[in-house]
């Protein structure tokens, strides 16, 4: 399934200069795995050394923060969105 991915401009030197691109995956879990496989430079910016999503990074699957989801083995539909966002915590 082909989904739409977006990342902040600041991270675009990890994604070949692009802020929007497509990714092929069957489930959300696979999409998250493929994202850092295809763009390994992204991994250090999204995840801690222990593999947790960084405190001020949000990964959104359509309108849901993936941290809210009970499971990641969600079948993807054509046109689903995976967004990397920076948490706004004031300012």
């Amino acid at each position, binding site marked *: 399934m082909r989904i739409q991915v977006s990342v902040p401009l*600041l*991270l675009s*030197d990890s994604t070949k200069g692009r802020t929007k691109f497509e990714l092929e995956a069957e489930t959300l879990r696979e999409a998250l795995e493929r994202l850092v496989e295809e763009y390994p*430079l992204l991994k*250090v910016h999204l995840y801690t050394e222990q593999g947790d999503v*960084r405190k001020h990074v949000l990964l959104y699957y359509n309108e849901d923060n993936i941290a809210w989801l009970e499971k990641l083995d969600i079948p993807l539909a054509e046109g689903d969105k995976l967004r990397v966002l*920076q*948490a706004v915590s004031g300012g």
Partner: protein
Amino acid sequence: MGKRVVLLIGTNKGVFQYTSNEERKEWKLSGPFLPGWEAYSVLGDSRNGNLIYAGTSHAAYGASIRVSDDMGESWRQIENGPSYSPESGFALNRIWQLVPGPASEPDTLYAGAEEAGLFVSYDRGENWRELKGLTSHPTRPNWFPGAGGMCLHTIIIDPGNKQRMWVAMSAVGVFRSEDGGETWKACNRGLSRVPTGQPEDEVGYCIHKMVIDPNDSNTLYMQEHGGVFKSSDGGDSWFPIEEGLTLKGDDAPFGFPISVSPTGDLFLVPLESSEQRSMKGGKMLVYSMRPGESRWEPIGDVMPDEERHVSVLRDAMTVDSLDPYGLYFGTTSGEVYYSLDRGVTWDRLPGQFSRILTVKPWIIEE
């Protein structure tokens, strides 16, 4: 053959670059490079072409090293940069220092990190590994972060013995290695201990910046949280060198950077106190101690006609290697000043940045 003089400026919003010739009268400003990233460390390296390295970080997105081979016009992120293992429990928050390896190893670079740790690359910065002897030191459980984070901000390699090196860390102290960074000894005897709340008295010393004497590898100087100190035995012991630095009450002379010229002139930018951390009375005074002397003198009033209630951070003062040498510093309010007469008279470089984190000279032979 002439020389191009480059001054790299790392700020909390990108990297900037001044360029001049040996005269250093006219400067051309370029940048911002890597906008949006904070650059706690920069390094211009001419050992293999002309490369600029930047230790970039961001509160949300962590830290990595970026490199440019076209004087900053384009940058590439290092894929196998410094990183801690998942098992270590440590986080790589910032790269505070990037320094070239010994002269005989033109492909070697060292990086100092926050959380405090030391990394080395033997292939021009492409692949890095942690020198784990430091973070596995028996005192490590008692290392405790200061207000600026637990950062390894100073790396000094003995110019006469590449196996001997020193590192300095905020709120932890000085460590020395005699075997190229594999094993380390704490070297903090005589320093002022800061209250970290930890019981281990081998550590808990808040080094702000440390330099090595250009003519004697056993002589080191430091601006510490609790004063200004010198060692004449390679760091085995330290004693205060504070004569001439005005003290208020029981306050120790406070500041962040210390610099030494190729001729042995020492420079400080004292601040009001640990609590206030800005120029005393808004007076931007640079102090110097000349070789062979034992007293600090206020040699340069940088802005005699205006108050500047700002600070200079630990890596934001530097000296170039030309004759006469240039002395430079950047402020927390984003101004860069320089002197070509041993710190006596000063000019301001054009441009205003955000908070200046690091200032590094780079002399390119042309």
